[in-house]
């Protein structure tokens, strides 16, 4: 049918294969769809570049599939938020003077300029042992930008004796 919008395969990366197949068979879809319209059985709506028509018989299955995927997305969203919170907490610990001093490599007799062991927090934050700025966490547009403060020098190792100004 000349002039009719060409059906396009929707982007259903998050749908199960069975639901994606169901959709591709029964839905004429545009990329600028309105999800709220598709959620009603037998409803139709006009999008910016075409129309959506859903057969009533398939609507129940479609809704079930959408509900399932919505729940999956919600769960995934919570997981992402939880990860973001853990990343922020790890960043705050990483740049807190009190904590970084306690974790100094010199406490074990090492050279102060030698990188210490890389913790899980560093890895999660996308940081490196060399002190590079951590990568921005996912979806962190609303979160404040955490800039690494200059790391305080670790405490000196215990000495056997001293030389210097107070030793005339």
């Amino acid at each position, binding site marked *: 049918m000349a002039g009719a919008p060409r059906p396009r395969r929707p982007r259903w990366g998050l749908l199960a294969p069975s639901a994606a197949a169901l959709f591709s068979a029964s839905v004429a879809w545009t990329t600028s769809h309105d999800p709220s319209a598709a959620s009603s059985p037998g409803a139709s709506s006009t999008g910016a570049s075409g129309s959506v028509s859903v057969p009533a018989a398939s609507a129940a299955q479609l809704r079930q599939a959408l509900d399932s995927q919505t729940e999956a997305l919600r769960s995934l969203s919570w997981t992402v938020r939880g990860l973001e919170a853990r990343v922020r907490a790890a960043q705050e610990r990483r740049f807190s003077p009190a904590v970084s001093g306690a974790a100094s490599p010199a406490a074990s007799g090492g050279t102060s300029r030698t990188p210490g062991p890389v913790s899980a927090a560093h890895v999660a934050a996308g940081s490196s042992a060399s002190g590079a700025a951590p990568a921005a966490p996912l979806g962190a547009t609303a979160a404040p930008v955490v800039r690494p403060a200059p790391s305080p020098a670790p405490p000196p190792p215990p000495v056997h004796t*001293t030389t210097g100004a107070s030793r005339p």
Partner: protein
Amino acid sequence: MAREPATLAFRAMNTNVTLQVVADGDAATEALTSAAWVFDRTERACTRFDPVSPLMQANAAPDEWHEVPPECFMAVQEAFRAHLLTGGLFDPRVLRALVDLGYDRTLPFGLGDVEIPDAREPSGLAAAPPGRTPTGGAAPRSWQPRFDGARNAVRLGPDPVDLGGIGKGLAVRWAARQLARAGSVYLVDAGGDCRLGGGGPEGDGWRVGIEDPTGQPLPIAVLGLHDASVATSSTAARTWRAGGVRRHHVIDPRSGTSADSGLVSVTVVGDDPADAEVWSKALLITGPEAAHDLCTRHGLAALWVHGDGRVGTSAPIRPLLRWSRDPVDGGDGDDG
């Protein structure tokens, strides 16, 4: 497992001396006692604060021959060697300048500000003839002491000398030999002039903190040393006020007054404590630029502190740094 060293601490040469050796009881006691006697003999032979000491009797008539104890004889010889080695930057003839500036007696350093009301303006060294030191300054009259090893006799030349700094370094050297007879792990520390035998009580190196000349509690750096000597010269030590002017004991032989080179502290690490003492003083006198050149020429391991607190190092000392308060430049021998 670390062995606790036997320790003997006492006061000598107007400074605190600490001796340590890891050895069995009797051997340790004997070594510590012998080492302490070294300090006693060296001080009695080389002090300038006792008018009847062998050194001061020679200073009273420096153009005449004087038989002196071996410690004094060797100290003058070593001072002459250091004078030649440093191109005149180390010059024991600064005694007159020290006296003129008010340091003519044992002063109670460390007990607050020392005020000397009757100090004179420094008369300086003998009139400088034409000539230049390696660092560009006017050279004082050359020093030509004479030695008669057959009878331990010296003729100092026209000027009296001060053996304080090098005498302490030599006492550390000789005391270390006594301790080394009892055990390879030992420490001789005389006011920061140190000789460190072996790798320390734990075996992983002696850790020596370099004090901040501005008096901050945190050290500037911590060295890890095996079988080495370290010495620091500082304008912040042995200071006094004379006529309202702050003075210190490191005299620039080119000017005849307290050195003002832009450096406030120099630490040198080497094999021998007397050499480390001499070079730390010479570098402090000559200033940062010439110090860098001298370190390169003589392969010196040195760390210096500028008047504004910046820290500079020569390349050979960097591998010895176990810890540093500020990042130390790993570049081509420049200030860090």
